[in-house]
């Protein structure tokens, strides 16, 4: 066991800390693609604090793939309230996919604007009848000359209302077994034949959508990987999504805000944090978070030390992280009591209603990205080696 990253990293860490100090007052605001966001994103890229290992020619920083440096950046940014780099499905899922499986043209065309936050993507995987059983998806893609013609329906497509592009799974080989008949396509959202209907969520926002696709034509070259290999391509990035839905560093940031909240809110003049019952709940959550952070270090270590296995450690991240986050937000509500139920534009509202909003949103993320029941199936079957449930004939 050696927790020192090494002296060369101390210097790097102080660089990061200095950068954060110098930029403490930076504010980004407005919708996605707002100039302030894009400028900040570019600044982070220029300093290597975002897209660090993405080659320069594709719009990244072009640094070495030094996971410890990435970790230091994440740690230091988590401690500070300065704006974080933009995320989203394009950045977290599509870019890694293109980097490993995309053609040179695709990398040239898509990675830079995606990293800068100018090009927003949505993920067209789920269908009304294919959620947990994603591989049963039925949206069709047929090659007609030099175009794919797409017909079908997608649902729960987050941020489709903002997106210019969609990475979509379609069935192109209807006669192949279900996992071998899918292809991974890149579909411009302004294509003709896309009818998008927003779906309102329990939070009151409408961040996800239904997409009705009728004879949508896209160029034949807009395929990542080979025909029929879309399932493997998608799986390469589902891992990225699951990790990013519940990053302990982000939760750390939220825990800091919760501590502040509990120091400010009072009951009969007494600070909530001074009430042992609430303080204990806070500390229990902190303990769980620390365990998850240690787990993240182990995953990190497995990435830089060949032969170290962290399979199980990785498989639990989404399950544990989303549950913890949901509970953390719930504690904030309890700490505020009745004030914690306030929403929208109510007087006395705290943090613009973010605690309630996020409490519900994380219930959504317990479901999204592969439900937590499916996560448990994965943990037991893939990491613990337990047998799969018997399959139903023909399914």
């Amino acid at each position, binding site marked *: 066991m050696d927790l020192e990253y090494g002296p060369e990293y101390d210097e790097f860490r102080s660089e990061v800390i200095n950068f954060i100090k110098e930029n403490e007052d930076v504010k980004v605001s407005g919708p996605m693609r707002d100039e302030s966001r894009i400028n900040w994103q570019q600044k982070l890229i220029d300093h290597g604090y975002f897209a660090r290992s993405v080659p320069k020619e594709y719009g990244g920083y072009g640094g070495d793939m030094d996971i410890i440096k990435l970790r230091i950046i994440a740690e230091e940014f988590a401690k500070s309230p300065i704006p974080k780099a933009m995320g989203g499905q394009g950045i977290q899922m599509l870019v890694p996919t293109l980097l490993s499986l995309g053609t040179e043209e695709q990398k040239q065309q898509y990675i830079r604007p995606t990293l800068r936050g100018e090009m927003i993507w949505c993920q067209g995987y789920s269908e009304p009848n294919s959620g947990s059983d994603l591989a*049963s998806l039925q949206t069709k893609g047929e090659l007609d000359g030099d175009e794919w013609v797409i017909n079908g329906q997608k649902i729960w497509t987050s941020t489709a209302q903002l997106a210019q592009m969609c990475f979509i799974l379609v069935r192109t080989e209807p006669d192949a077994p279900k996992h071998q008949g899918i292809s991974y396509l890149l579909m411009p959202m302004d294509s003709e034949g896309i009818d998008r209907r927003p779906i309102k969520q*329990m939070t009151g926002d409408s961040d996800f959508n239904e997409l009705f696709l009728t004879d949508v034509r896209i160029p034949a070259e807009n395929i990542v990987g080979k025909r029929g290999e879309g399932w493997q391509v998608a799986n390469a990035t589902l891992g990225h999504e699951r990790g990013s839905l519940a990053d302990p560093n982000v939760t750390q940031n939220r825990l800091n805000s919760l501590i502040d909240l509990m120091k400010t809110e009072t009951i009969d003049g007494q600070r909530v944090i001074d009430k042992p019952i609430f303080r204990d709940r806070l500390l229990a959550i902190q303990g769980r978070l620390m365990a998850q952070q240690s787990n993240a270090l182990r995953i990190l270590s497995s990435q830089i030390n060949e032969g170290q296995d962290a399979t199980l450690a990785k498989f639990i991240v989404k399950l544990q992280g989303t549950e913890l986050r949901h509970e953390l937000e719930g504690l904030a509500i309890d700490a505020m*009591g009745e004030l914690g139920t306030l929403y929208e534009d109510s007087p006395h509202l705290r943090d613009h209603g973010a605690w309630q909003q996020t409490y519900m949103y994380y*219930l*959504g993320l317990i*479901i999204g990205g592969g439900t937590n*029941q499916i996560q448990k199936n994965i943990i037991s079957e893939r990491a613990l080696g337990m047998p799969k449930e018997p399959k139903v004939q023909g399914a």
Partner: protein
Amino acid sequence: MYFGLSEEQKSLEENISKFLSDNAPLDTIKAVANGEEEKAEEIHKGIIELGLSGIMVPESYGGLELNMLFATVVSSALGSGTAPVPYIGAYVMAPLAISLAGDEDQKNEWLPKIAGGEKVIGVGLSEFVGAREDAGIEFDKGKVTGRSLFLIDGKNADAYLLANKSGELFLIDASSKGIKVTELVTVDKTRTSVELTLDKVDATLLPGTSDLSVIEKVLDAGRLMLSADTVGASQVMLDKAVAYSLERKQFGRLIGSFQAVKHMCAEMAAELEPCHSMIWHAAHSQDSSAEDARLMACQTKAHVSEVGKQVSKTATEVHGGMGFTDELGLHYWFKRIGLNRQLLGSPELIREEAGKLQGFDQ
């Protein structure tokens, strides 16, 4: 020995459920949540016709003089239907307080009108339970000054029943000078909430509230009603989850055939089933002035709130992405349970009180 609801209580519950399923289906609840207040007013009229405004009013003042167990049955049915109507404050806590502690004039003035559905009284005990935002009211020479948050049934009320920190209760006419009413917006759009700011407003003391016994009874009643509302709402969420699991197929199977889904439902049922008994028992303890009536009311509110939180989360999960949508509307129950949890004390605060009741703080 018979532990359970009487035929009369069961039929009351059925009547309310029938009324609500006929007159307040989900589309109507949605319309109310989106601001169509007239629709809520219609439902309110309907429950008055069912006699619900009079259940806690003594017969001699024109009411039905039913007991706490009946009131619990009603509250549970209203929670099941996420009914957008005044009840817990206006028709349980307020008439109880006035009957127990009002003088003859106050009783004559308010009780018949409550029973008849002519007057709604909003109830503000939050500051007695635990003051936030430095809220609180002072009573001096017939005038009340201060601030009260989260009045139950306080929107469009004709009068307010408020408590000061020492547990005295006051009635204020809503048309009096010096009152500012601010609407509070919570996640639960099936009920309303307001804040009052009071500047030397005329108030009359309920003379019987010089010791804590009355406010405690009123608080117990309110907490029991909130618990019953949560139990009713939770039961619906569980029922919906089971029903959905018998419709939805994935991997060529009904999702209800996955042990994971069965266990989620079984766990909800295992937690929730005793809560029905618990609210009846706690209500009966109030009715029979049992020695542990207060403790039961506290523990019921705290425990049911925890179970409700778990059930509302799990039932949503069983629905997958659908559970997270506005359209399915499951969230109306989810949010109602969420608000009930915080009103009149969150579980931690109430358990603290339960400890004190047993002298654990000595």
